[in-house]
């Protein structure tokens, strides 16, 4: 049975970022992945590196997201240098467009809460009115009355990121094992045996980063990962000359020139079928923001199941019963890639999560009876 220093289960955005970080730290890592047909939440990621609305009411999440966004440029540059792959990261700031006064007011209130909750980290935001917006967003639809803007937001190409992390991982000596769905897992403190189609492997550390699969895997390691699928559909237009200088929450232009339209959420279990009604909703909403989208051809659309923890916040945990076992789940695999590679992976390599991540433990879902 081949032994490694760490086994990461799940080769998506979360698993590959952690695996890359571990391999970079000098550990011998096995990264397990499924086959060509798998749920792969990474495919449903819109590509935002988004900060401005993360962690309202949860300052620890706000801080974690900010730290990740700050790590992003370093990570992107490092991946380019090491693998030759440009992940298309840009950080021009981002806007959340508002279509009526109630929405604008609610947004302003949220931004202010974020600022207050940010403490000495600070939170720089601007509420832009229509006049300011039309200067930076050409052809802005008449329905848009204002927006919130922060300098922290940006975007990247999720699939290039995935590819770069994989390549960086492999070049650091990591072992990628596709077609390796876990069939059996044996757990002992500091000693884990994982059986897959090709045989069994062992390691003193195991990281569960299997997205929706974590819900089933976690209990075997004395952990809990109560995540649910949330379907997202995305539309992409034909390539066009660049017009959008920064991303919005639901519309962004990629480096190649295609414009992505998205941010739908459907709570429909494990159904990955496309639904024209939802595609239509995405299209109509996009036209409210930019009427000139009307004549652009949609060349591709897809649906994928993303991962949603019960309160929307990530789950990071270490097993008390089986020390050495960790879980990592989140909805925002691109935004948090910086943190996962540069902050979380070193913690795992060192053997324990930083106390600052304690609030992300799944224990927060254990509701004890009122004291």
């Amino acid at each position, binding site marked *: 049975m081949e032994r490694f220093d760490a086994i990461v289960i799940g080769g998506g955005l979360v698993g590959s970022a952690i695996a890359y970080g571990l391999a970079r730290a000098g550990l011998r890592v096995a990264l397990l*992945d499924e086959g060509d047909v798998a749920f792969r939440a990474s495919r449903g990621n819109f590509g935002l590196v988004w900060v401005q609305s*993360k962690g309202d009411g949860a300052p620890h999440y706000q801080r974690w997201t900010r730290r990740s966004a700050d790590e992003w440029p370093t990570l992107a540059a490092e991946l380019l240098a090491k693998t030759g792959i440009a992940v298309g990261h840009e950080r021009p700031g981002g806007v959340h467009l508002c279509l009526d006064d109630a*929405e604008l007011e609610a947004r302003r209130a949220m931004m202010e809460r974020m600022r207050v909750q940010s403490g000495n980290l600070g939170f720089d935001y601007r509420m832009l009115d229509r006049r300011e917006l039309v200067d930076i967003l050409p052809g802005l639809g008449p*329905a848009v009355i204002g927006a919130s803007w922060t300098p922290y937001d940006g975007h990247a190409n999720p699939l290039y990121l995935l590819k770069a992390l994989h390549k960086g991982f492999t070049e650091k000596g990591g072992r990628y094992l*596709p077609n390796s769905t876990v069939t059996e897992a044996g757990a002992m403190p500091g000693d884990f045996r994982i059986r897959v189609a090709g045989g069994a492997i062992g390691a003193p550390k195991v990281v569960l980063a299997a997205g929706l699969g974590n819900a089933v895997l976690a209990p075997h390691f004395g952990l809990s990962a109560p995540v649910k699928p949330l379907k997202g559909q995305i539309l992409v237009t034909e390539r066009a000359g660049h017009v959008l200088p920064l991303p919005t929450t639901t519309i962004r232009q990629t480096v190649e020139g295609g414009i992505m339209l998205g941010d739908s959420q459907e709570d429909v279990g494990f159904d990955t079928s496309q639904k024209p009604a939802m595609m239509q909703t995405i299209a109509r909403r996009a036209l409210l923001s930019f009427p000139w989208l*009307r004549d652009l051809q949609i*060349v*591709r659309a897809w649906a994928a199941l993303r991962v949603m923890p019960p309160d929307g916040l990530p789950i990071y945990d270490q097993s008390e019963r089986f020390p050495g076992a960790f879980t990592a789940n989140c909805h925002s695999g691109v935004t948090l890639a910086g943190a996962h590679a540069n902050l979380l992976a070193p913690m795992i390599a060192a053997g324990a999560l930083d106390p600052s991540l304690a609030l992300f433990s799944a224990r927060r879902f254990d509701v004890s009876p009122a004291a």
Partner: protein
Amino acid sequence: MTVELAIVGAGPAGMAAAALAAELGLDTMLVDEQGSPGGQLYRAIERAPPDTPLGPEYLAGRSLAAAARASRIDYRTHTTLWHVEPDGTLFLEAAGRTESLTARRILLATGALERPVPIPGWTLPGVMTAGAAQILLKSADLVPEGRVVLAGQGPLLYLVASQLARAGAPPIALFETTPLENYLEAARHPASLWRGRRLLLKGLGWIAAVKRAGVPIRHGIRGMRAIGRRRLERVAWEDGELAADYLFLHEGVIPNVQVTFALQLRHEWDTAQLCWRPVLDAWGQTSLPNIAVAGDGGGISGAEAAVLTGRLAALDAAMWLGHIGEAERDRRARPIRAALDRERALRPFLDRLYRPSRTVMVPAADEVIACRCEEVSVGQIRRATRLGATGPNQLKAFTRCGMGPCQGRICGPVVAAIVADVLGKPVAEIGTFRPRAPFKPITVGALADLEAAESAAESIACPSSVAQPLTLPPTRAPPSPR
């Protein structure tokens, strides 16, 4: 809107099915992208002059078109299918507008497409498929000017050569790429030659016509390359080179399985024809009871067989929809099945003789473009496979291959074969790209204005970024951190 039977594709299978279905009293809709019936095999048939250089087989399509036109059907021209659901809901686009409707039964008659022939330089202007040359002749009465070379194998290659010669533009050479071992393999099964003698004689007639026209034919050609800077200038092969202006390639046709794969119907890898085909019963029914396939889309059998399978599917639909009984369906089917057996008799021989060589499936040179849309090379695909991509869909993530507008129609077979080759697995295990809606591009505006079959009564969770949607379904606050 609901129809009893929706037929997608107005080629021979679709036309024959529509005419018979209407005759049997079915409320039938026929949907096709072109402006007139015929599909590709009988494209522009209604405008064909009686002395067309395309020959009598082509003219035979006139009666099919006339019958379809004369039938009481809802015939939608210039209409594209962009999505279909297993429950029978079809989403169409025409003139920039979209609509949806339901059909109690669907018959997919979307035909075939040419197998990609990824040789070095195949993306150069001047390099086209033999079918493309034939379409230009059929639909636009145009012939290529200059030095024309045909290369590849299969009956269509000889047919197009003879048609071009008759049209006043004889090719300067026909390069046949049939590997020597194919002749030996095909010769081992003489029975199908006898049973399929009618078609065999027809094919031999085409070959003779090409020879009579004085077109030089070379056999056993290997290592085809297209050379040129901004367009084709020379054609090269292992043993020589030739200056040329046009190179028409052909290595057979394969079923168009875009819609059947999008529906996730059951498919099997046809080891004789080296292509995917939907699993069908004797009436063309797929793994979904309300969806059937007729014509070359179910497996390559040619124009005549397409007509016959179209009629079988119409009979079956008529029975399931209660217009005729099972006994009548079977009675009417008998002579059709007998004719179908005769049409298919030569197929085993043709499949063996014209089996594509290995390099057609897996190009040798790394620089050859595999994905024309995104300009991804064979080498890039090999490298991504070694990096860990296990199949075409993961490859999409790693290379963008398959993300272009053709959605893998052209590159799918090549990509799968390359991955299979690198991993040492059979192609059947590798799978193919999963096609998605929209099957063909539609504008954001057309999608936004979609007229649905029934109102969107289902509650659809709207994204939180719209607090008060204007004319959109009611929002349901999702637990999102956004």
